[in-house]
Structure formats: structure tokens, C-alpha cells
């Protein structure tokens, strides 16, 4: 009986072993001669393109693969475009990457380290100093400018702020809410009194503050989000692995190449560092804290 049982178990295991099928590997696309890379409107869309074009040209020179930039009017569009426009990759913000990874399966390669040697950013909620708004209560009946529904700094942070301050329906609590589209515009709208409260990422806030002293002088920060990874390059998971490796290697070593160093200086970074999915766990947790289901989240702005 025992032998039978042993035999039966072995046969069952053997059958199971024979019947186990490997998940079908994604069909690899042939090595693309041109990659379409999306850009989110972190700042003025034309300045954004000017900032990234030298980097794309450098990658083309080093890898032989032409890189075409596609600027997008909204953060959420980047997820749509992967489905509709045949986009091969993008420089994702932390939240858009988390969304795109969940919805489309893109894989992150690398992200830049800023000149202050940081490779993360956090969101800020700010008001004018002369507005006397210092708490959530003070925000009642005021105008709030977000960046985009698909941004950590420009939307998740305010949602989390409202959540922790017991404001369940911010649209009813506030007089007006709208989406500026870029962090830059959100900051300037508050500064120029087009909105009373704003949310944006600290890196843009600090960059603009260097050029415009009014920002530090006239704005005050009320809250901040946890640090999340800076905008990173991610590619579709069916991109040729060798091309993916070449691109990654080129990005990681470009600070050792004199030409690469010049491009990095122009870009405003010290180097690129390898980035892994785990580093976005903070964003996933942050979204979870405010009960956002990333796979069903409607990232389209109202």
C-alpha cells in the first residue's frame, strides 16, 4: 500500500512535471532602428524637449538607434500612448511609471542623479505667504491647482493631505480645482495669484527658485510627500534585450565619457544610475495609503 502510494505520488509528480507549461515568453520585437520615446510635461513642453534632445542624440551616436521624442500634453497620456501610438519607452515620473508598469508592463532602466547629488524628489504643497493659509481648514473655499492626476507630487500628495486632514470630497471643500499640466505652471499660478494653493515637485520648485527669487520670498510650503525616484527611462518589456542593455550601459557610463559629461551638464545631472522596480514601492504604498487601486485608477484629468 505504502509502495503503491509512493508510486502513485511519483507518477503524479511526473505527470505534473510533464504537463507544466512555462508562461509564454513575450514575443520579442526585432531590433528597432528607431525608438519613440515619450516625454511627460514636467515643465513647459518646449523647454522639456530642448532639455532631452541632446541626450537622445547622444544615445543615438553611441547605440546607433535613432531616438525620437514625443512630447505629451498630459502625464496620463503616456499610458494611453503605449497602447495607441506604438511608443517604445518614456521618461516616466514616479507615479506614471507605477501606473504604466502595472497597466502596460514597462521596465525601468535608469534615472539621473541631480546636480545636488540626489536621485529622488518629493512633492510640496505651497501657498502664498500673504494668503494666511497654513492649514487644511484655511483651504476651505479656496482655489487649488494640481499638476496632473498621474503625478505623485502634483496630485497624490494633495489627495494624501486631504485624506489625513479628513477631507473626503475635496471638490466640495474647495472653491475650484484644476490641473495646470506642468509643475512649473502650478507654481507660477500660485505665485501670480491665479490659484491660492498649489502642489508640485520640489526639484522644479528649487530650479525655478534659482531663476526667480520671488518663489522663495513669496511662497511658503505647507506639506511634503515622501521621497520617490526621479523621472526615469523605462522601455516596453518586448524591446530587444541587447538594445535595452546597450542603452542602459550607455546611460550608466556616460559620465565617464567626455562627450557624455557635456550632455549631462547640459541636462542638469551628474550621472545616471540603475533603477529597479522595488524603488517605486514607496509610490505604491503612498497610493495604497489613500486607497488608490493602481490597476483601475482613472488617471484622466476631469
Amino acid at each position: 500500500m505504502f509502495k503503491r502510494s509512493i508510486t502513485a505520488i511519483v507518477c503524479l509528480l511526473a505527470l505534473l512535471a510533464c504537463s507544466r507549461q512555462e508562461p509564454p515568453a513575450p514575443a520579442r520585437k526585432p531590433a528597432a532602428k528607431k525608438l519613440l520615446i515619450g516625454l511627460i510635461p514636467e515643465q513647459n513642453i518646449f523647454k522639456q524637449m530642448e532639455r532631452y534632445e541632446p541626450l537622445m542624440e547622444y544615445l543615438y551616436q553611441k547605440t546607433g538607434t535613432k531616438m525620437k521624442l514625443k512630447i505629451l500634453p498630459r502625464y496620463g497620456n503616456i499610458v494611453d500612448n503605449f497602447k495607441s501610438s506604438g511608443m517604445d519607452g518614456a521618461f516616466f515620473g514616479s507615479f506614471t511609471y507605477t501606473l504604466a508598469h502595472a497597466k502596460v508592463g514597462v521596465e525601468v532602466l535608469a534615472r539621473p542623479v541631480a546636480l545636488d547629488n540626489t536621485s529622488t524628489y518629493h512633492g510640496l504643497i505651497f501657498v502664498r505667504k500673504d494668503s494666511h493659509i497654513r492649514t487644511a481648514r484655511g483651504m476651505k473655499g479656496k482655489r487649488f491647482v494640481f499638476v496632473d492626476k498621474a503625478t505623485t507630487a502634483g496630485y497624490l500628495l494633495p489627495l494624501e493631505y486631504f485624506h489625513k486632514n479628513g477631507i473626503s470630497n475635496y471638490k466640495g471643500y474647495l472653491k475650484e480645482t484644476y490641473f495646470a499640466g506642468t509643475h512649473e505652471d502650478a507654481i507660477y499660478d500660485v505665485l501670480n495669484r491665479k490659484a491660492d494653493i498649489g502642489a508640485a515637485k520640489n526639484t522644479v520648485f528649487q530650479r525655478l527658485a534659482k531663476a526667480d527669487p520671488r518663489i522663495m520670498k513669496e511662497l511658503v510650503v505647507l506639506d511634503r510627500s515622501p521621497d520617490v525616484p526621479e523621472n526615469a527611462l523605462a522601455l516596453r518589456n518586448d524591446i530587444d534585450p541587447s538594445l535595452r542593455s546597450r542603452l542602459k550601459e550607455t546611460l550608466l557610463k556616460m559620465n565617464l565619457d567626455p562627450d557624455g559629461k557635456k550632455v549631462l551638464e547640459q541636462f542638469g545631472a551628474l550621472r545616471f544610475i540603475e533603477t529597479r522596480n522595488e524603488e517605486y514601492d514607496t509610490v505604491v504604498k503612498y497610493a495604497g495609503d489613500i486607497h488608490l487601486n493602481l490597476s483601475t485608477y482613472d488617471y484622466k484629468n476631469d
Partner: protein
Amino acid sequence: MKRKIVIALAIYSVVFLLAGVYVIRTIQTATTNLDRLITLHQVEILREHYLLQIKRVQADLTLIDTPHSRSFDIVVAHILGMGRIIDTCFDCHHSPRGTERLNALKKQTEIYKDALSRVLTLRANASRLAAEEAAAFGIGEELIAQVREMIAFTTSKLGESTQKAMSEIERTKYFLYGLVALGPLVSAVLGFVFILGLTRPVKVLVESTRRLKSGDLDHRVVALKDEFGELAEAFNEMAGSLKEQLQKMQRTEQMVVVGELAAGLAHEIKNPMAGIKVAMSVLSEEAYISSEDKGVLRKVVAEITQLEGLMKSFLNFAKPQKPRLEPVNVNQMLNTTLTFHLKHRAVGADGPGKIEVVKELGELPPTMADPTQLQQIFLNLFLNALHAMPRGGELGVRTCLEEDGKTIRIEVSDTGSGIREDLINKVFQPFFTTKTKGTGLGLAISRQMIEQHDGAIAVANRPGGGALFTILLPVKAEGAAA
């Protein structure tokens, strides 16, 4: 002439070179201006294109959120195209004012792009969206106004530049016309001057040659310069030489005639005359002849003796003796002859005048010469000098060795009345004499002898009065060819 031709050609070349340089420079300037015009026209087109692009973006802006709105990518492409055009404008060279205008335009374009970016990315309520679109549209209209103003400014500049360029081209055209007209004219004038400069002297030389050919040996070419002047000088020397040779030939012919005459006289007259002379001498010794007749007979004998001397001179001149050369000290020869001559004069002096002899004898090398002939030459010159000073005077005798060391110079001068200028060239001609009893053969024979010694004799009047005979004798070493 050669120098003049070189200078003239150099000037001609420099003038044409300068004209060429001017033409090239003007063409280059015109080309540059045309290039500039083309560039300005291109800029004009570029700005018009820029204006169109802005209007296109404005249209895109107006159509946003309407059923006819263009896709985001097309709008972005239009805006980027607009930005690229203004950046292209900076590639050209502009005046500071132009650059300032362009900078203002660029700044306004950037403001417009910021506003457009905001419109494209903003999601808000309708009134906020409308306000942002209106703001962007207003900025766009301002930009259009600025571009139009710039187009008007450049259009006026373009007109000025076109006018200027065309004026320069016109000026170059007239200059080239001038060159085309003047070039051949200047060449023709220069050619005429050169040809005249060449043919006139040649004509003068041909004419002179013809006159020489016709026997006018006294004709000389004058007033020619440069190389033709040198040719004229050579021509004149040739004419002089021809005349001299002709005179020599004439003298030779005379010698031939005289020689034949002398030979005839010697043969036909001398012997009968000797007979007459002997007969007269014998007759004059006869007792029956009266003393008065004896005087006549002696006079006859004396005249016959004189005729015999004349005959002897004839023979000497017509058939001169070949010099018998031996080493001679010319100074010593002069001293001896002078001493002999003065002694002879003391015995048979004609006039009462006192002759003072001044000797300046330089150191001379011995030379091969015929001492008898030299003595005869010197004696002849001394006799002439004494004859020229009937009332006394100074007889100068000077010798020296010429600087070349190959010629002995002997000068015999007197302080008499000199020789008339119209006769000075005839003193060496045979049978020419100013003396009442002279034969006219002394100086002719002297010259003949000197020439037989390869020497020369000349005569000139001294500035202070009197004549100066100059003999040049070559120094001949013993053993040298005669």
C-alpha cells in the same frame, strides 16, 4: 631708349594692373552686394514664412476645443517650426540694431511658446481655459505686429541695399565701358609714340648715310639720344674715319704723282742741270769774262744749286726712305738737334730777335727709331718755330711719357702769331707754305716720316698765342717689329 621703353611698358603694365585690380575688386564688391541682396531676400522670405507660421499657430490656437481642432502633435510641430525659424534668423549677420530687434522677437516668441504650452497642458474650467487661450492669442498678435514691423523695416533696408548694389554695378559697368574704349586708344597712342621714337632716328641715320654716300663727308648726325645717340656717335666716327682715309688716299695719289714727277725731273732735268751748273762754274772762272758777268754766272750756279735742293726734297717726299731703326734716346736727339740748330741760326740768323729756349724734358725710355729722320723732323719743327718768331720769342720743347707708358709725347711750341684757323688743317699738305721761299714739303715730309714710325703729329694754336706741334711716338723695344 631701352630704358624709356622699359619704363613706359612698366607704367603701362602698372596702369592696367591697377585697372584690373579695380575691376576685380568692384566685381567682388558687386558680387558681395548681390550675395547680401540674395541673403536679404532670403531673410525676407524667412520672415514672411515666420509670420505665416505664427498665423498658423494662432489658427491652431483658435481652433482648440472646436470640432476642427488639430491634433496635439501637429500643433506642437507648428510651434516648434515657428521656434526653429526665429533661431535660423540668428545664423545670419545682423547690425547691432537688427540683433536687438531679433532678440526682442526671440523673447516674445519664447513668451508665446510658454503661453501656448500652458494652453496645451492646462485642464480647467471653461472660463480659465478661455482666459489662458485669450492671453496666448494676445501674445501671438503682439508677436505678429512685431514681425510685421520688422518686415517693414527690412523691406525698406532691402530697397536701399538694392539701390546701392545696382548703383555700384552701374558704376562698374561704366568703368568697364571706359576701359574698353580707352584701352585700345591708349595702346594706339603709346604704340604711335614708340614707333615714332624708333623710326625717326632710323630715318635720320638713313638720310645721313645717303649724304655720306653722295660724298658729304663733313655731314654729322646730331640730336639723337640714347642708343640711337650712341649709334649716331659711331656713325660720326665712321664718317670722320672715312674722310681721313680719303685724305690719305688723296695724299697717296699726290705722292704717286709727285714721285713720278720727281723721277721724271730727276731723270730729265737733273743731268742737264748738272751740266749747265758745271759749265757755268767753268765759265765763271774764265779770264775773259768780266767781273760783272762772273757775278751773274755765280748767281746762276747758286740758283741751280737751289733747284737741285728742291729736286732732292721732291725725291725724298715722293720716294721716302724706309726708316732704319736703332735704339734712340729722344731727349738726347732733341738736345743735339737744338744745339746744332741754334748754332746754325747764330751763323745765319735772319732777324735780330732773341730766342729763349725753354726745355722740359721728362724721363723717357729708349725707343727704336731712325735717328736721321727724327733729327730732320725736329730740325724742321725748330726752323718753323724760329720763322714764326722773327722778332724773337720763346721756343718750348717738352717731352714726357704718356700715362699708358707706351707713348712718348713731344711738344714744340713757339710764341709767334700762330696759324690762321682756315689754314691750320692744310699745314701738313704737300706744297702748302706761308713762307716766301719755302717748298711746302717740310711738314708734309715730317708727317710722312712720323707715320712711318707709327706715330702721329698734330698742330694747334696756343691760347696765349703761337703754335704747338705735338708728336706722339710709340715706344718700341729693341727687337720688336718695325
